[in-house]
């Protein structure tokens, strides 16, 4: 009688031990590592690198969402679509955009007659889409421009404007 009780106790104990080990292993190995999650979040962001979220670019923002708990509604170019996808990925609630912006793609354009060749915009561009040399006219590679507006403020002669293309 006692033997049967002992067998039962030991069996259940062994199962509990195995399950515990398994779970502790899983908890260490299975959840997506932060790096991977950052990568996934970064993939959902529009890569305009506009810094309107308050971080230095899309990847830094992704990092902040994952590790610093930054809100997911700070990305105006991504719009509500991006918020929904982020909410789905991270299991958070979709909130509306903090600072909404009309949808569609725009690119910056330099009024080349006014450009003085100061190179300020060139160093501000996060995706190297501006070509030009000191005291020579600059121009924007339209196909690479993300419309982030970061080149507009540094221009001393205000010759850069944003044009909607879609």
């Amino acid at each position, binding site marked *: 009688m006692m033997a049967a009780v002992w067998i039962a106790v030991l069996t259940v104990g062994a199962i509990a031990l195995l399950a515990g080990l398994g779970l502790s292993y899983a908890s260490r190995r299975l959840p997506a590592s932060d790096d991977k999650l950052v990568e996934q979040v970064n993939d959902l962001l*529009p890569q305009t690198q506009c810094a309107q979220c308050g971080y230095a*670019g899309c990847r830094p923002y992704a990092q902040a969402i994952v590790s610093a708990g930054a809100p997911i509604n700070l990305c105006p170019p991504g719009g509500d679509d991006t918020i929904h996808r982020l909410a789905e990925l991270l299991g958070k609630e979709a909130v509306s955009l903090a600072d909404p912006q009309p949808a569609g793609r725009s690119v910056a354009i330099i009024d080349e007659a006014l450009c003085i060749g100061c190179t300020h915009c060139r160093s501000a561009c996060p*995706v190297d889409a501006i070509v030009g040399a000191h005291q020579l006219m600059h121009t924007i590679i339209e196909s690479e421009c*993300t419309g982030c507006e970061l080149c507009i403020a540094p221009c001393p002669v205000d010759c850069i404007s944003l044009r909607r293309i879609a």
Partner: protein
Amino acid sequence: MTAPTYDLGKLHGGMRLPLRKSRGTAKPIYEIPVPGQLVLPIEQHVGNPAQPIVGIGERVLKGQLIAELDGALGAPIHASSSGKIVAIERWPISRRRGDPGPCIVIETDGEDRAIERADTPPPFDSLPPETLLQIILQGGIVGLGGAVFPTAQKLMQANTCEIDHLILNGVECEPYISCDDVLMRERAREVVGGAQILMHALGLESCFIVVESDKSVALHKLADEMTDVKDDRLVLKQVPTIYPSGGEDQLVQLVTNREVPSGGLPSDVGCLVQNVGTAAAIYDWIHDHEPLISRITTITGDGINQPMNVKARIGTTVADIVNFAGGYSDVAKQLIIGGPMTGKSVSTDDVPIVKATNCVLVLSETPSPGPELPCIRCGDCAAVCPVQLLPQQLFWYACADDEKHMRSYGLTDCIECGCCDLVCPSHIPLTADFRNAKGRIRELADEKARAERARRRFEARNERLDREQQAREQELAQQKADAKKAGPAAIAEILKRKQKRDKD
């Protein structure tokens, strides 16, 4: 005469449509006189628009090159008649449904003088295939069945694959259109001759000329011609009159019983399909040195007084052709370039005839089929779909904007034939929805590619900035170290000099 043979292959779905072709085929091909002004769009083909090489005011001759091939995929454009270039400007074009696109405008001089041929080229069968392909490339020849893919590039692509059969497509399955039918009736010699040139260019020993079974006159004419030519590589075949058996992949399936894989080309299953009109155009170019400057077009519909087939110079406006065909009838309401199933309705008859224009269709007001109702999942659309898709599922996913499922259910394989629209009891405009969804998929893919590129550039820039920063720091550290090393010695030197000065 050689008797045409039937085939084994089966087409899934498809429909028997009322053809309404007899009014067009009752009369011979009329040649339209050269109009006073020709408008030649520079984007008449798949690929890059041609690059104009003439200036305003320049005189050109018929057949002279006026816009050349730009890039790897495209076709050159030749002047359709002699005259003066008066403008290179935007003009309504059918490709954009009547919105303007870049065109070269020629004011004709009425002389229609052809450019002189530098020399008589050797007969085509003495030329190596590569040379022949280069010559075809210069003729500005594109697929005349409607897709306008540059022919020479299609042949070059096929030459990189293992090809067994050349298939000449004389299956004009869409209602109203009859330009290929009359072409085969009146110009069977050119069609067969073109087939021989194509076979030589591809090094092939087998060519099927395929015609629908209802085109008995064309079948007879071709059979007679083939008896005269006595080329046993050519085989005449007929296929049942079912829409859309003239689709490229559908025809391959019908004739050879091989299925073109999803996202693939007929060359993946050893076939190359060319339209009969393209073959005739190649014959004209190789034998008579006439580039693609005219084509046969059907002008028909109940909105036209005298429906007919005309041979028009590329660049003649639709208005000119309508006038030639007796003008619009009282009921004319809708102008369509192409057939009723796959054509595009355009907003103005100022658009010129281009290499793609196989039909000008003027219809009276079509009675509305009724309001769009919810899908009842009857599955009729799946039964007629020639590509064996499930339109009812695709519609579901298109409404939900579910890109992943649209792709996995084969939206990109949809040939937009319009069969599902016709059978839908709820009058859902499925084809239009699928066309939009395809555009959306393309847009999403573009967006993704752009984002990916931006990300790479951003990361590359950050790396570069890091590198520069590191280099600067290193340099600074180096300078510091140098100064430290050189410092005591320099101080000693200065002290020594000072002592010397003090002594003096």
